[in-house]
């Protein structure tokens, strides 16, 4: 049985924890709003980019096309880009991305493919390192970045393209978390190299059938556009990830705050009981003493 003083200390410390988790929740909520706004602001660009890519891919379909679009022809070496958060305390956010990536690695290795890993975000690197340290080829550190910008995405894209040019891999896949709502973030994988234009639903396809003229030629536009399409995909993944991270952190901290509240209630009851017990014992002692006289 802990003493009254111990209980009191524990209640105090849980209250402090609750204050911290509550504050973190509110900070996450504010950041989430900003992250969502950023994700929304980036959407017209990636949609526009996708539309142009589709018209181009359709026009260039008959030819061989550049390597970035057609692939290297091989399917041997896979580069997995695992994008996670820089910080923890966000529920299962990081682990679920890593879990998806681990599954993919095992599948690929079972098929006899070579797997390489590039991590973005410290948490993912730490978790992957435990099992796959020998497969890791690089890491992108974003811990100094307060708010992900397009230049972060272009930097990663440039790194990827340089590796692709050097023949380090045939297929690149990114792993990130798609933001659905505060309580639901879906770990997702998407192939970025060779570039695969996003699928379209029927209605949009009709309007996409306009035959465009290209200035300069299709090839030139493609070579200029493809690296940018990779960067755009990375950028939207980064944005989705940022929103997901804050959403996950918000609900994790909400849970923690609630748990702390419950714990305080329990401890307070225990505290009151032991206090009452102490008073009762004291009274009994006094009465017993008085009777003995």
């Amino acid at each position, binding site marked *: 049985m802990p003493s009254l003083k111990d209980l009191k200390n524990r209640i105090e410390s849980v209250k402090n924890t609750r204050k911290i988790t509550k504050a973190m929740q509110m900070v996450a909520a504010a950041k989430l709003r900003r992250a969502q706004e950023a994700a929304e602001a980036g959407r017209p660009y990636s949609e526009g980019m996708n539309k*142009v890519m589709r018209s181009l891919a359709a026009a260039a379909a008959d030819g061989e096309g550049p390597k970035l679009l057609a692939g290297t022809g091989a399917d041997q070496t896979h580069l997995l880009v695992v994008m996670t958060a820089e910080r923890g305390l966000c529920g299962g956010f990081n682990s679920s991305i890593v879990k998806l990536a681990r599954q993919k690695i095992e599948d690929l290795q079972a098929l006899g493919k070579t797997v390489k890993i590039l991590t973005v975000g410290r948490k993912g690197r730490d978790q992957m390192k435990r099992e796959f340290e020998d497969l890791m080829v690089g890491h992108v550190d974003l811990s100094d970045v307060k708010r992900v910008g397009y230049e972060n995405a272009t930097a990663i894209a440039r790194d990827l393209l340089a590796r692709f040019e050097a023949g380090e891999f045939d297929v690149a896949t990114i792993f990130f978390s798609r933001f659905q709502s505060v309580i639901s973030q879906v770990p997702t994988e998407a192939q970025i190299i060779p570039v695969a234009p996003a699928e379209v639903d029927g209605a949009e396809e009709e309007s996409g059938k306009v035959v465009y003229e290209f200035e300069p030629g299709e090839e030139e536009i493609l070579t200029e556009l493809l690296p940018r399409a990779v960067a755009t995909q990375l950028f939207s993944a980064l944005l989705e990830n940022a929103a997901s991270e804050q959403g996950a952190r918000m609900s994790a901290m909400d849970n923690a705050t609630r748990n702390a509240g419950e714990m305080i209630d329990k401890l307070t009851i225990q505290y009151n009981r032991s206090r009452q017990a102490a008073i009762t014992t004291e009274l009994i002692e006094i009465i017993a003493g008085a009777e003995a006289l």
Partner: protein
Amino acid sequence: MAETMQFDLVSPERSLASFAASEVQVPGSEGEMTVMPEHAPVITTLRPGIVRARGEKGDEEFIVTQGIAEISAASVAIIAEQAFPRAEVSRADMEKILEEARARAEAASGEERLTAEKFVEELVHFIEMME
């Protein structure tokens, strides 16, 4: 014949403009062009320059560095790598972009280097024109 067409200008980080325009000047890589409604569908790359759109409230000007313009009969969509409203950019800002482009050209190799160097040249040319 339609009087206006939909004009959109987006950069990766935000959407800068979206309104009905009666004519749009686009700095295409093959040359400056003025787009009117009912233009034949064209997709063109951009070089550093000024996009000028004539809307209801008069002309609006934007500076773009690189990107793609997608032109169809009823719309002009400019998907720019970097875009700023004309008033927000000073010569110093442009020179900073130029410095970055130069550094990138130095670091690049092969074909990439050629494109990067071409971009630097176009930027220099554009900054001179700005005066």
